[in-house]
């Protein structure tokens, strides 16, 4: 018998053969997330997190299936001498049945979870939408007011902008000229040589165009008595998606919450989701409020406006006409305006529906969807975005075809 020792070669001199397989594994994980995105989004854990923090979301690892024994398999383990029949030794997770057998190749249950940040997940989500035109279309260049820069110098100006350095230089220059011309020697004669108005120089400031993109998400929700917790949760999930989407595309995103029953008012997020109101519903009230807010604070030439309204569709009949009219107006100022009717399973047919009423709206950037359960969220969201309006708002109803509109810068 003989033996050989092979000394250590630093890793840098060897190729990393696992790199290829690791990459492929990452790809497969992304693929599986893409395939199951509706399920993942339906998980409560994602919705309603602090949005600016990067959080980790557990994703089930990709399983390698084999024939394995199920949960009724008894196992044998080692105790500490105090076990009695009836003692609980652990959770019934099937993975535990294999503990201790230690077989390297034994199939166990993959309890291992891969982690992915919320940011990464959202990227995958929006990759999945495959809407390459979207960004180009809706990114607007806006003159932002508060951006200025210095450009040149002027004789006149306000005190705060005094350029001390060039002012002092001018004074020195003038002094030298006087010495040369008159042959005076100030130092010896102890005479003063004060600043003159001609010495003063001021910075000149010009407003500059800074490319900024602003967006506002208007969340309009029916808070009448008929909107229960489940419905609110679905609505909230949808707004969350919308906010995440808009945030991806714009630098500056604001969110406005408008709650309405027969009257509408702007509320805080907390109130929006948790306060229960009672009474009937005037949808038009919510829309009017939204229009008011847009007029006051978010001019369509400066803001990309996304509005979405969630309701259970139980509107007062007399209000329908006004609602359609207001919706039309909203369509004209918004990039996208959507209406989601939330009808969780079990909510009976007795309640009305606005779907038929809103069907009259022919604006291209208007979209309706029905959300019955968590799994509907993603498809609904996708269909909502597919209507994103290509043109700048305020140019009136859309008549151009999709092909022509994509030429707009």
């Amino acid at each position, binding site marked *: 018998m003989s033996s050989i020792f092979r000394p250590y070669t630093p890793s840098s001199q060897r190729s990393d053969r696992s790199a*290829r*397989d690791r990459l492929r594994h990452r790809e497969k994980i992304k693929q599986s997330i893409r395939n199951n995105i509706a399920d993942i989004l339906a998980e409560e854990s994602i919705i309603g997190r602090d949005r600016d923090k990067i959080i980790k979301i557990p994703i089930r690892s990709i399983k390698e299936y084999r024939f394995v024994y199920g949960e009724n398999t008894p196992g044998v383990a080692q105790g500490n001498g105090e076990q009695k029949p009836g003692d609980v030794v652990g959770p019934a997770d099937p993975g535990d049945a294999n503990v201790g057998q230690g077989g390297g190749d034994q199939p166990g249950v993959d309890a291992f979870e891969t982690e992915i940040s919320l940011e990464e997940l959202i990227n995958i989500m929006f990759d999945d939408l495959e809407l390459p035109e979207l960004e180009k279309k809706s990114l607007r260049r806006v003159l932002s007011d508060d951006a200025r820069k210095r450009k040149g110098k002027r004789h006149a100006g306000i005190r705060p902008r005094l350029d001390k350095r060039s002012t002092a230089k001018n004074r020195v220059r003038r002094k030298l000229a006087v010495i040369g011309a008159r042959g005076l020697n100030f130092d010896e004669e102890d005479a003063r040589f004060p600043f003159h108005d001609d010495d003063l120089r001021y910075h000149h400031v010009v407003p500059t165009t800074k490319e900024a993109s602003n967006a506002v998400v208007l969340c309009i929700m029916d808070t009448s008595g008929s909107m229960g917790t489940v419905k609110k949760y679905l609505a909230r999930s949808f707004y969350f998606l919308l906010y995440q989407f808009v945030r991806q595309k714009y630098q500056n995103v604001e969110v406005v919450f408008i709650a309405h029953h027969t009257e509408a008012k702007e509320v805080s997020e907390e109130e929006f989701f948790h306060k229960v109101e009672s009474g009937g519903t005037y949808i038009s009230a919510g829309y009017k409020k939204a229009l008011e807010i847009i007029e006051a604070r978010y001019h369509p030439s400066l803001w990309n406006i996304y509005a979405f309204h969630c309701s259970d569709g139980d509107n007062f009949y007399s209000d329908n006409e006004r609602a359609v009219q207001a919706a039309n107006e909203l369509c004209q100022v918004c990039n996208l305006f959507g209406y989601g009717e939330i009808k969780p399973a079990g909510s009976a047919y007795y309640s009305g529906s606005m779907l038929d009423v809103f069907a009259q709206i022919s604006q291209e950037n208007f979209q309706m969807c029905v959300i019955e359960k968590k799994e509907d969220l993603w498809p609904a969201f996708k269909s909502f975005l597919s209507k994103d309006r290509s043109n700048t708002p305020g140019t009136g109803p859309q008549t151009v075809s999709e092909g022509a509109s994509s030429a707009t810068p």
Partner: protein
Amino acid sequence: MTISVEELQKWDEKIRGLVERFGLKCYPQEFDICDHNEMIGYMAYAGMPARYSHWSFGKNYERQKTLYDYGVSGLPYEMVINSCPCIAYLMRDNSLLLQILTIAHVYGHNDFFANNFTFTSGLDARYTLEMFKNHGVRIDKYIEDPSIGLEQVERVLDCAHAISLQGSHNLAIRKRSPEEQRLYKWESAQQPPDPWAEIHPKREYKPPDLNKVPLEPEENLLGFIAQYNPYLPEWKRDILRMVEEEAKYFVPQIETKIMNEGWASYWHHKILSALELEQGLHMEFMVRHNQVIRPTPGGLNPYHLGFVIWNDIEKRWNEGKTGREFSDDKPRLDVSTLSENERPGRKKIFEVREVDRDTSFLRRFLTVDIMRELDLFQHEKRGKDRVVTKIADQENWKEIKETLIKNVGVGAIPVIKIEDADYGKNRTLYLKHYHDGRDLQLEYAEQTLRHIGALWEREVALETILNGKKSLLKLVDDELKLEKL
């Protein structure tokens, strides 16, 4: 501080001297010094220096690395691969004592690989490395082939991996050749000669169906599909055969985990005790050795169980307490006059390391005393918890032992055989799960059936027992159907 190669060689010299003195018969040994990153890499690829590419190895790597980075699990001190010459990896950051312990431990494994029947009756250890490397080259060739490509190769590998361990549960049992099978089937259908034929009513003779495929229920799913699916392209067939062959490398390791680790631990203990280490090293040895073989309550440490049983066998045979073989009228040998290698205990363990595998090892040598010492208990699912159902008392120890035997080695892999390749006369593959009280995990069974279906390219049905009811799982148009039989 890393230990120089010269220093390691010096210790290796001493250890090899002892290995020979103790009579271990090893393959030539090679040690590779590596760092922790490489160790993780080797673990992901089952230690092979070259192996084909598949995402599951990447997954394996990530998992090991995550566990290591977060300190959930450490790395093994060593990694040995069963080949001739035997290759082991030593981590260069380990302390001197750990290196010595590891080298001794490796020689234990090496001897086991070279002598245990599960290993010697399987693959030829001399070609192991070449086989894995060759498979890597072939798979790469298929991936680069523009008419095949990564996606397709991956799909076939995924499917093949799913059933790679569904092979023979004992590689040492020779499979009957097709001719022998036919002969056997014909013979067993013949009526035995009956001396009273004249007065007995004449029995009807049913000719055996000698054209049935398979003639006998077939365990080796991969090999069978590769042979009997006529529509498989040659490259797919090749991949199936590769995976089938590689499984033969892994099965003996699964089958002998407890024996193998116990044997290596027994020998590193013997060798390091005989090395007469200086005090500091000896203290570290005691600590490390105990870390390796400590019991893990709630689990079962194969190092510990194996170590205890090997020592117990040696002790009992030395003392003559060998059950059947022990009787009062046989004069007891005075073992102290014999040299260590000549004592009956030592001879016995050398015999056992050759002819047993975990199932038989436990059946023959796990005594009730050891079970009590280790406090083995049986646990079962009750609602959401695993609950202790039996402890090793007078009534129950036998049953616990049976349960353990069922769960070790390939016992953890369900026995599934192909009964008929032309079920219902439409080439449906009919599989039967040989139920032994343990149900299949349904989700896994369903997905695995899908994989088999993808390889067989026709419908697949699996007969099993679920919750006490005989059922047939069927994949029809990608939907799982459950029929009561």
